[in-house]
């Protein structure tokens, strides 16, 4: 039974903590306030080896395990959830190119992605297709050696900032799930433009926006895998993506608990630090329990993925539990800080605004519960 990170993972955790606390945390408030995407940080992230976590060493990556990945994202999210999110999306896209790309495609994109020069984004959702991803309409028509792409993508993390976009498109009018393919679109391709950027409740330092394709012509060499592989490709990223969101949620929750604990020791009311009141102590205790349980679920799901065991229900449990916990913990943090918690002089209101989205994206938590329930009903049916 593993319950301890190995020496290398601990070393990586300490390094990422130091980097995140020194280079990210001091700016997080300002980035949130100004909706600033910290592109200037990306090369340093690349130099550390954090921009190619799923990229093989031959292409300049660090080829880390999923478990090590969760350790990294938790630390970055403790400093700033926005940064952790766009970085996780970037690493996922690089991972997809590494896994499904041919050698030419890998050589073309991966070294610069791992170096923190080329930023990746992932475009699946559309106005009418969120949870129901197979109902996308964005269309790619084959024309000789090219594809001609038409349609609009919604909710794309790093829209306008990214250099390469993995876009899920329909290459076949008829076939539902099987007609979906993945095209890699570079930012300056004619016919491709950025639409509206969303004004969000939180996650301000990670832009989210619309991609517009109008007769956008792409060479067929930008197709990842084969025609019809698109759904398989995006589904392959689901477990890992969910585990990462669980880790990120755990990080935000931990940051909220750390601030709350310090505040409870310092803030005096009725002649005592508020941490001396049982009402506050019980809140802190519940927060700590939720965080520890989240972390263990995340580690377990990542460990199963690394071992090649079926991980899907575990990834869904980890994502759902950790993000629900993060919402509860950050809300309680605001409560513990009282008025101070509600104003921007303290970071907990930002944690709470940021945490909310983690219950929604990468599969809304209702969907996660469906996944878990299906694994139960399925297995019960089998036993009988």
């Amino acid at each position, binding site marked *: 039974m593993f319950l301890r990170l190995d*020496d*290398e993972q601990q*070393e*990586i955790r300490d*390094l990422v903590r*130091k*980097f995140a606390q020194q280079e990210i945390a001091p700016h997080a408030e300002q980035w949130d306030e100004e909706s600033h995407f910290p592109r200037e940080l990306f090369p340093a992230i690349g*130099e*550390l*080896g*954090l921009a190619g*976590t799923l990229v093989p*060493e031959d292409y300049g990556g*660090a080829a*880390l395990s999923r478990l090590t990945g969760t350790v990294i994202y938790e630390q970055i999210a403790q400093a700033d959830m926005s940064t952790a999110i766009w970085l996780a999306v970037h690493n996922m896209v690089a991972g997809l190119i590494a896994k499904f790309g041919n050698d030419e495609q890998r050589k073309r994109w991966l070294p610069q992605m791992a170096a923190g020069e080329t930023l990746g984004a992932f475009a699946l959702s559309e106005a009418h297709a969120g949870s129901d991803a197979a109902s996308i309409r964005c269309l790619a028509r084959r024309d000789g050696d090219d594809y001609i792409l038409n349609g609009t993508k919604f909710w794309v993390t790093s829209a306008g900032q990214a250099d390469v976009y993995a876009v899920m498109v329909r290459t076949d009018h008829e076939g539902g799930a099987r007609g979906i393919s993945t095209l890699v679109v570079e930012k300056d391709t004619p016919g491709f433009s950025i639409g509206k950027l969303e004004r969000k409740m939180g996650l301000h330092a990670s832009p989210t926006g619309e991609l517009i394709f109008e007769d956008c012509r792409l060479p067929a060499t930008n197709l990842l895998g084969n025609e019809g592989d698109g759904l398989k490709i995006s589904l392959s990223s689901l477990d890992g993506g969910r585990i990462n969101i669980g880790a990120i949620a755990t990080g935000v929750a931990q940051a909220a608990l750390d601030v709350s604990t310090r505040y409870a020791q310092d803030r005096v009311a009725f002649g005592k630090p508020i941490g001396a009141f049982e009402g506050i102590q019980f809140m802190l205790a519940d927060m700590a329990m939720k965080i520890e349980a989240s972390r263990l679920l995340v580690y377990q799901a990542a460990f199963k993925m690394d071992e090649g065991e079926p991980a899907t229900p575990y990834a869904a449990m980890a994502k759902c539990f950790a993000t629900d916990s993060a919402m509860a913990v950050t809300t309680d943090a605001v409560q513990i800080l009282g008025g101070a918690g509600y104003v921007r002089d303290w970071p907990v209101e930002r944690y709470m605004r940021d945490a909310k989205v983690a219950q929604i994206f990468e599969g809304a938590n209702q969907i996660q519960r469906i996944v878990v329930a299906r694994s139960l009903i399925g297995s019960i049916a089998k036993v009988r």
Partner: protein
Amino acid sequence: MKIVMCVKETPSTTAEKRFGADMRLERRKEDAIINPFDEYSIEEGLRQQEKHGGETIVLSMGPATATDTIRKALAMGADRGVLVSDPALAGSDAVATARVLAAALQKIGFDLVLFGSAAADAYGGIVPSAVAEFLGLPLLSFATKLDEDGTTAKIERQAEVGYNTVETQTPALVSVMKSINEPRYPSMKGIMQSKKKTIDTMSLADLGIESGTVGAGASGEKALSAEKITTQRKGEIYMGNDGAAERVVAFLVEQKVL
């Protein structure tokens, strides 16, 4: 060029400090870090290597577990490590430590030896000069800039007004200040590669040092007592419009700030 960086394992600056009956600092493995001052000498060694090529070696004297600390320096990019470890070394003072480091340096061979300006546990700052004395070589201390061209080493040292330039033939020893550079973060790859790099361990016997000349028994320095410094912040708060500004001004005048 062969560059040796001397690195000490110290307790984290934020760790709670406890002293044993012999008044020696109790060192807990989980609090161990690279002496923060040494990150600058490691960085400087790596930069000199990037300029001139050659080999970078991390040398440490410490408990057998100090290999973890050496690995951290290897993760930053140094080529290999040497740990001098021997039960008889326990309780060595600065001079005894210097005797051991000097012997190890002679055994390793070097063109340039780099030190941090002090260690964050005892703040003695004596070891670099004592090692230089044992080796009979020049020490360029407190460098804020280092230029090395294979035959001479030249440093800048902050002076009261401006700075001094000091130069010597190599081989030589240099201790560096924090302002000399900005230490790099190790990378994921660095961390993974550090596992494959070699760390040689040397005992006193390997260095031909009599155990009676080092360790607590041979150390002239004795810690007699240890006390916690408590800093008391006295805040005075003047409230309201009622002469508060005048009292603040009076206070500042009294403190000769205004």
